[in-house]
């Protein structure tokens, strides 16, 4: 789960890290009130994605009227597919310098990596490419976390020795997000040193591990419901299905993430575009198939459905019967192509054919067929 900026800052504050004064506003009036209380503020869109400044999601407001106008513009705005649910009004900082501090999981090293650089701010990726040595790195032992001297080394290596004391203490606090919250990525960029010498989190990004959600139910309860999200994805989640919305015209059902992804690739190769996909996981129980089909069809852009199921030890004839029943129960009219494999697949295909569902001999043929059928249906 990716937290919004104000949520991430709330977490940082709970770990003892300084953040600027700020207030959440769900309406323009709330933003005006926040500005009246805090003085000049930055009105910031709250979306779980980078690049909001460039998208017009951050505006400075000196007066309550300006804050009201800014919030009216930003709330409801679409930033990279996310509808902005609320803004965060935050006191602007007197910036002396900007530092980069973050950690993430280094997949290749199978370890957490802590990173610190004196060259913080927007261009950090460019810094990483052009002068990687200016980003100091540390792989803390996962059982005991970073030791004091390791952090001191990190800070000096980053050329930030004059801030050794406040920085080592701050990094230790940030690191607590790993053992205490199962954070997999945290980033403070910029970490601001103010003109008066304080070290404050200017921005904050925090992602916690979905696989550890069972031991952090409080986080989900507190922060999970703020973003509206894709209504179809919400519905699919209720049914226990993995579902992703895309922007094409063909619905895809498959079992297993790899198979779903390779089916998307095939549809694109055949000249079509996926509207969404639903991973039904192992097996293909009739009830699960029907739920998946129902969720796929909720999206009005869908003009045809491709189902690619690898059965293994699942019986093809049973999958076919379940599918015919699901289609009839849902009164589905759109073209449906099914690629079935597994035991008794010939019987399965016969049942499909008798019931007006196109069987594909292999996945590639099935992808071509559904692309063709949706084109015909569109005419």
């Amino acid at each position, binding site marked *: 789960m990716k937290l919004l900026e104000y949520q991430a800052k709330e977490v940082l504050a709970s770990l003892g890290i300084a953040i600027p004064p700020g207030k959440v506003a769900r309406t323009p009036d709330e933003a005006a009130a926040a500005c009246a209380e805090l003085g000049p503020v930055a009105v910031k869109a709250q979306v779980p994605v980078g690049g909001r400044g460039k998208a017009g999601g951050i505006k400075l407001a000196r007066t309550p009227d300006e804050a009201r106008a800014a919030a009216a513009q930003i709330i409801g705005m679409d930033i990279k597919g996310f509808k902005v649910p609320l803004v965060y009004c935050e006191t602007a900082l007197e910036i002396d310098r900007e530092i980069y501090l973050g950690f993430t999981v280094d*997949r290749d090293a199978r370890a957490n990596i802590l990173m610190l650089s004196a060259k913080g701010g927007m261009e950090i990726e460019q810094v990483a490419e052009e002068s990687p040595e200016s980003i100091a790195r540390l792989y803390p032992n996962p059982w005991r976390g970073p030791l004091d001297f390791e952090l001191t080394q990190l800070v000096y290596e980053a050329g930030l020795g004059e801030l050794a004391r406040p920085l080592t203490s701050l990094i230790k606090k940030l690191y607590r997000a*790993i053992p205490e919250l199962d954070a997999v990525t945290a980033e403070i*960029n910029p970490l601001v040193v103010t003109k008066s010498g304080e070290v404050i989190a200017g921005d904050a990004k925090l992602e916690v591990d979905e*696989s550890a959600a*069972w031991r952090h139910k409080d986080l989900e309860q507190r922060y999970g419901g703020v973003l509206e999200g894709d209504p179809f994805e919400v519905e699919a989640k209720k049914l226990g299905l993995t579902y992703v919305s895309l922007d094409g015209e063909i619905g895809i059902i498959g079992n297993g993430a790899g*198979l779903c992804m390779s089916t998307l690739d095939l549809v694109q190769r055949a000249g079509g575009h996926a509207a969404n996909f639903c991973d039904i996981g*192992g097996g293909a129980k009739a009830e699960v198939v029907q739920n998946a089909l129902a969720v796929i069809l909720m999206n009005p852009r869908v003009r045809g459905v491709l189902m690619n199921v*690898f059965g293994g030890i699942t019986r093809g004839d049973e999958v076919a019967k379940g599918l015919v029943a699901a289609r009839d129960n849902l009164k589905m009219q759109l073209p449906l192509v099914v690629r079935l494999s597994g035991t008794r697949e010939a019987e399965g295909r016969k049942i499909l054919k008798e019931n007006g569902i196109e069987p594909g001999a292999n996945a590639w043929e099935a992808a071509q067929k559904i692309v063709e059928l949706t084109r015909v249906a569109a005419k």
Partner: protein
Amino acid sequence: MSILLDASSRVIVQGITGREGTFHAEQMQAMGTRVVGGTSPGKGGTAHIGVPVFNTVADAVKATDANASGIFVPPPFAADAIMEAAASGITLIVCITEGIPIQEMIKVKDFLRGYPAARLIGANCPGLITPGVAKIGIIPQNITSSGPVGLVSRSGTLTYEVASALSASGLGQSTIVGIGGDPVLGLTFRDVIELFEQDPATTHLVVIGEIGGSDEERAAELLARGSRLKTVAFISGRTAPEGKRMGHAGAIISGNRGTAKSKEEAFRKAGVAVAETTDEIVGLLR
């Protein structure tokens, strides 16, 4: 011949009395795997599906000389189960469990450094099978057949898909290894390919990768140094939507690696044939 698993492997199942553990242990027995026991804390001293049950892996190893284990316990207990297996002397640990917290797996990887003889496959993987001989995990035996092709994959169902296409075309497999799709896992493509290189019975290799991470690129670097295996690679996810990125931390450490394009290019540069669809794999392998 095969890698990692053969007729002499003595296998226990951790979580043998659970629903999944029971079903898959029976499937493993049905194809001839030497399942010598299982564990289930509190049920030590009983028998289940014809084999003895122990409270701990240490007890099981002492009584049965087991050297391999399949783990079917729920996510909150799985990381501990892996470490227990390693500490008890098991050298092939196969963890099927999906949904282990990443931070737990990072600790596991660190712990395993103290047990260099222990090899971990997974977690969140279908396991491995040496067709006609033995399996640990959930790969359906009916889609496999014995032969010269080594198959290593990050995906579950795609592995089945490719194995069954190979079998249908008369291309049997030496061993099939599903390494799993989690960000932090045990054996990598590279580790498994090194084992296939040393197995005289394996003459061909299929690598099924997917977007994310750079294990595929590292495998390609290894193959580029020269290989006796005739290899085909396939990468799924070339049209998958980009994950909506939030911070820069990921990009700082991985740069442009991780995309389907980067992986395919790495394999091509290594002289490995790249299949654009799974249907092309068989043709390219012949």
